[in-house]
């Protein structure tokens, strides 16, 4: 092979992802002044990932035991209880640590605080820029992890602003790439204004392709979203969602959903809406015009901003009858980790939504920011320790890197029978929506497998324009290939779980089966093949009641 034709950057800790988890991990790791940190993010910090789009509600414990109970019963006992226990114990410390950076954290009730997404990232970006041992690689797309002798030793990268391919070698790597639910479905809260925020699960796919285990990937949260076409899928505040909900005949489906665990994030409620729509009783509306609204002035700039926007756009449900649809919101499944954020591969850590096992079958409002803050810091700490104790691997095979480079640049060559990326993505979203949505069954999932395999073959027909500089189509093609792997894992996991638990509802197995299925589904790539197995839940803190 020729001498390598790419630049190599080196660091001690590589952080992939510029949302809250990645930024906090970089902040924490960089407190070790002798460690060199690189944070790679596909957009500028504060202008990419889902953190800037979030309300910022963060769950705090009334007591540690209460928090564990809420999460584990809410998650239908599918959570990793050691992770839950760690998170409940650590959140208060982690919040105190955040406060050092002069982030305007506002407690608005005893068990919730607002950690405002956009402001937090702006403050922490400035902090990272100040630190001499941190380098920010913004507008950098990471395309694969480099593995050598069973250990992750870095990643391949594409500088989107120039189109240059390069590698980043690292002692420890943290994946903090966020969720996988957004891009796979035609309707999603992840695209607040109908334009993609690229929540595409590439981190899940890269870890999986490197041999890491993914767990419970069938657990995808679906939520009601405004259907208004002008500002598609704009997120509302939780209090907007209480109800009443009516169908097209004006029948009240639910007058107030506060009694559902998880409220508007409840799978039971969303399944009810789904069935109502399936019966032909849609569209469904949320109508709060008769409710007495408390005009609570908030201290959170982004919340005031959002309320003003809703009013200006004519989609404030206190003033208008709003049609709703169901879309994807959050992925509870993810990369298998322990409470130290260690994945099943040495040298690889994961933080934030990309972690599996935290929420089990349902994520409760406020808990994704708790996860982000606790495990962002923790991953930074653990990866730094690992980097301090290990040498960089100097020698490893370049073949994998050359192969990855070829794969990426293949998208710039004209195939025989080219396909548009937008078209192929539409096909993938359609099959996920038809067969891997709120209600699933064996027949539908088998159909989905077939279609997804065909789409996987068609990825090689994707073709982007040939220029290098900020080539959107190229970046999207690279990400799409990874998304298809994630879709395949979801469908296989959903087929395997022959019961209904949390967000996973099987029409052919409509009951929760605690005898057989207090188990994680585990997917792992072995010898190039997707393999599945189960792994029993450990009842570290709580057990389900015997005859539930």
């Amino acid at each position: 092979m020729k001498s390598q034709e790419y630049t190599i950057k080196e660091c001690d800790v590589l952080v992939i992802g510029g949302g809250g988890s990645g930024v906090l991990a970089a902040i924490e790791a960089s407190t070790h002044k002798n460690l060199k940190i690189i944070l790679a993010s596909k957009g500028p910090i504060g202008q990419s990932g889902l953190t800037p789009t979030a309300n910022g509600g963060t769950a705090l414990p009334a007591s540690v035991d209460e928090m564990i109970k809420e999460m584990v019963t809410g998650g239908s006992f599918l959570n990793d209880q050691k992770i839950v226990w760690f998170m409940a114990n650590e959140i208060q410390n982690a919040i105190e640590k955040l406060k050092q950076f002069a982030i305007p954290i506002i407690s608005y009730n005893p068990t919730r605080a607002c950690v405002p997404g956009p402001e937090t990232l702006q403050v922490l970006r400035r902090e990272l820029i100040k630190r001499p041992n941190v380098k920010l690689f913004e507008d950098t797309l990471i395309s694969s992890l480099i593995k050598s002798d069973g250990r992750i030793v870095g990643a391949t990268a594409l500088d989107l602003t120039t189109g240059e391919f390069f590698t980043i070698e690292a002692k420890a790597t943290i994946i903090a790439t966020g969720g996988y639910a957004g891009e796979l479905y035609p309707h999603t809260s992840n695209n607040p204004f109908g334009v993609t925020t690229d929540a595409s699960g590439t981190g899940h796919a890269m870890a999986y392709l490197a041999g890491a285990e993914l767990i419970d990937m069938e657990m995808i949260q679906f939520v009601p979203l405004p259907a208004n076409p002008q500002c598609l899928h704009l997120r509302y505040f939780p209090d907007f969602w209480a109800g009443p909900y009516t169908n097209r005949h004006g029948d009240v489906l639910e007058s107030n959903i506060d009694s559902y665990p998880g409220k508007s994030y409840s799978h039971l409620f969303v399944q009810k809406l789904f069935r109502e729509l399936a019966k032909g009783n849609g569209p469904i509306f949320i109508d709060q015009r008769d409710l007495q609204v408390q005009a609570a002035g908030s201290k959170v700039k982004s919340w005031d901003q959002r309320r003003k926007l809703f009013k200006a756009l004519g989609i404030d449900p206190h003033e208008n009858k709003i049609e709703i649809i169901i879309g994807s919101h959050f992925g509870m499944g993810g990369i298998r980790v322990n409470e130290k954020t260690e994945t099943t591969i040495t040298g690889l850590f994961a933080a934030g939504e990309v972690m599996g096992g935290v929420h089990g079958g349902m994520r409760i409002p406020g808990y994704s920011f708790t996860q982000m803050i606790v495990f962002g810091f923790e991953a930074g700490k653990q990866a730094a320790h690992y980097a301090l104790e290990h040498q960089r691997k100097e020698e490893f095979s370049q073949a994998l890197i050359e192969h990855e480079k070829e794969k990426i640049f293949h998208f710039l060559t004209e195939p025989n029978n080219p396909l548009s990326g937008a078209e192929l993505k539409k096909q993938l979203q359609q099959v996920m929506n038809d067969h891997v949505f709120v209600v699933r069954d064996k027949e539908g999932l088998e159909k989905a497998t077939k279609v997804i395999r065909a789409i996987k073959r068609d990825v090689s027909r994707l073709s982007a324009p040939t220029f290098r500089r900020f080539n959107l189509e190229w970046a999207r093609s690279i990400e799409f290939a990874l998304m298809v792997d994630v879709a395949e894992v979801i469908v296989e996991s959903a087929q395997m779980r022959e019961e209904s638990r949390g967000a996973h509802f099987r029409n052919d197995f409509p009951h929760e089966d605690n005898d057989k299925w207090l188990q994680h589904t585990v997917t792992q790539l072995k010898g190039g093949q997707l393999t599945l197995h189960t792994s029993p839940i450990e009842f570290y803190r709580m057990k389900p009641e015997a005859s539930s």
Partner: protein
Amino acid sequence: MNTHITANVFRFNPDTDREPFYKKYRVKSDGEMSVLVLLDRIQREIDQTLSFRSFCCGLQMCRSCLMKINHKKKFACLTIVKPGEKVVIEPATYPELHIKDLVVKLPDKE
């Protein structure tokens, strides 16, 4: 009734173009849409070579979609255009911090 929006978009790839130029797109539309959605549609359906920052926080706070719309700096996510209208779209800054077309670099002190 008008069924198209006409966008005149600033284009410049410093690697391949000698100087900036404007490209006109007629986008079929049966209703109003934001400039950001308009650009997304142009990139997906008409011209894959167009570069812009598609990220959107939904709050008018992240500034990712800040650009010059009809010669004034505005957020593309919330600037609405209607069928029959013409709109000129240019990068927020040029030549300072310019990368390609409508994409500019976020300064360190942002």
